[in-house]
């Protein structure tokens, strides 16, 4: 616990803010229409009109990255907040009450985490039709165990503190104690887990889209753009650099921010 925000948190905040700003800006403005294919402008190297060059269909990379960021971040936000909500509810409950339910749920969580995440996601995507919704559901389930574990262990340390007894003595019920008395104390932990979760979700979404299982064309997505750039890696390397750089910067940004928050409060 430290008094001030570290450099980490500041760099993270700037990076995240920049990526967010680009994505939000794409709602009202992109340098070129995203879906416009210009046959005379294929595989152009970066220039003033196309800062990140164009791909083999003659689409402006910058515009596609901006719009792709929107989807990537949206998917990450929805999955992470969804799984944080479900995971927290489960983790807080089993941590507070302990007992047989706790043991049972934790074994399930262990089993779920023992699977390589990508395999689990692949199973979902194989069973359900490939779409943005599928990827959201797959990632959602993938991230629940992490939040369950974190919230449960924090609950275990907090629920035996004296002030919980004070609340009980005042006549507060268990639900109120969990939500009003203990949960606010766990917010910093949750916040840092949320933000690190966002960076993981962005990576996972990129991976799945790279494998062609995530966001479907023509909707741009960073992972998909990377995959498409693969075949032109030598003729048009900028096609890979642009989405790759975005993924790195975003993931790094969220990671720094999460670490910064953790160092400050936990």
């Amino acid at each position, binding site marked *: 616990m430290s008094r001030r925000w570290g450099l980490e948190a500041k760099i993270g905040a700037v990076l995240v803010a920049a990526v967010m700003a680009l994505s939000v800006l794409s709602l009202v403005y992109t340098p070129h229409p995203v879906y416009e294919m210009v046959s005379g402008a294929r595989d152009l190297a970066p220039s003033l009109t196309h800062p990140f060059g164009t791909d083999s269909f003659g689409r402006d990379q910058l515009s596609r990255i901006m719009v792709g960021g929107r989807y990537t971040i949206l998917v990450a936000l929805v999955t992470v907040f969804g799984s944080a909500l479900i995971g927290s509810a489960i983790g807080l409950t089993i941590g507070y009450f302990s007992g047989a339910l706790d043991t049972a749920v934790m074994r399930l969580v262990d089993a779920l985490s023992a699977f390589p995440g990508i395999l689990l996601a692949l199973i979902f995507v194989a069973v359900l039709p490939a779409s943005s919704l599928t990827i959201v559901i797959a990632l959602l389930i993938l991230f629940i165990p992490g939040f369950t574990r974190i919230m449960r262990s924090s609950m275990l340390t907090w629920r035996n503190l004296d002030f919980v007894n*004070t609340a009980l003595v005042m006549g507060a019920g268990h639900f109120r104690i969990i939500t009003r008395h203990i949960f606010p104390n766990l917010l910093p932990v949750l916040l840092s887990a949320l933000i690190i979760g966002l960076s993981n979700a962005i990576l996972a979404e990129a991976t799945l889209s790279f494998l062609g299982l995530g966001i479907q064309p023509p909707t741009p997505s960073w992972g998909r753009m990377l995959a498409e750039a693969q075949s032109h890696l030598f003729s048009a390397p900028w096609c890979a650099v642009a989405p790759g750089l975005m993924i790195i910067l975003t993931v790094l940004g969220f990671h720094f921010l999460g670490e910064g928050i953790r160092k400050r409060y936990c």
Partner: protein
Amino acid sequence: MRAPASQSLLRVEHLGVGLRQRQRRQKRQHTIRAVEDVSLTVNAGEIVGIVGESGCGKSLTALSVMGLLPAAMELVGGSIVFENERLDQLRERNLNAIRGNRLTMIFQEPMSSLNPLMRIGRQLAEPLVLHGVSTAGAIRERVLEAMGKVGLRDPETLLRAYPHQLSGGMLQRVMIAAAIVCRPRLIIADEPTTALDVTTQAQILRLLRQINQTDQTSILFISHDLGVINQICDQVLVMYAGRIVERGTVGNVLWHPVHEYTKGLIKSIPTRRSKGAPLPSIRGRVPALAEEKAGCAFAPRCPAAHSQCFLEVPDELALSDFHQVNCFLADVESEMEYVRI
């Protein structure tokens, strides 16, 4: 005051608390008891003390009454009646309607007994919110009234403060304010002054006494300090190894102790006259929970124990209406005092 026709507010009978058995195969009689056959009565407006060495089951007795035994412990018999309601048979929801309202508790560590992230104002309002005072104005009025009663000055600033900004003595006052804000009939105070310095301790004791006198609030006061008990209590129960060994009015028990354990406790209080001399202490130690206890638990440490003491558990012997003792050595005939002191 001669035996007032006071109504009993809290009546605990034959309370037993044991370590929860994990294996169902283990038989009941092997249950490890931390509290055994404890009976006590708190009348309206009375302060009753429980005294005893560390680990003798004082807190567990108190927590049983509140329905807040630690997970490892369970009730293994007895009854707890508060205002004509069997607390031990009440559902959680009904218990919550009583806790914090008519029956409440104060703990030893004021520093950790308040929520670090909640402003004092909200923590003081919590019992009111939980017990049906809903308008902001009414809550404010009651909170300020309680703060006034416990002598907390500058309430406006205090309401907005967080616990870490206050001293231990102030926090204990806040705890007491939170306890009395719903005007309870009984407060259980588990070593409320142990964590405080001597001056603050005296102030808190005075405060509790004052609350007891002005509001007729009964207090079950737990302490291992006989001096404190002597100052504040009307009745006292002496506990040893999970059982009550001697009980009665403070005057009778503390000034004319009969049980060797009580005598030992009193002898080991440092006094001005004993200055310089080595402080007497009771030889031996409190038996561990799991130790097999045949006979009187104090027998191995008792200077006057005879063979019967090691074989049977003594029943309660009434020396008078105001003094009972569980000891084979006590002799009604030789007892001089039959009056309430």
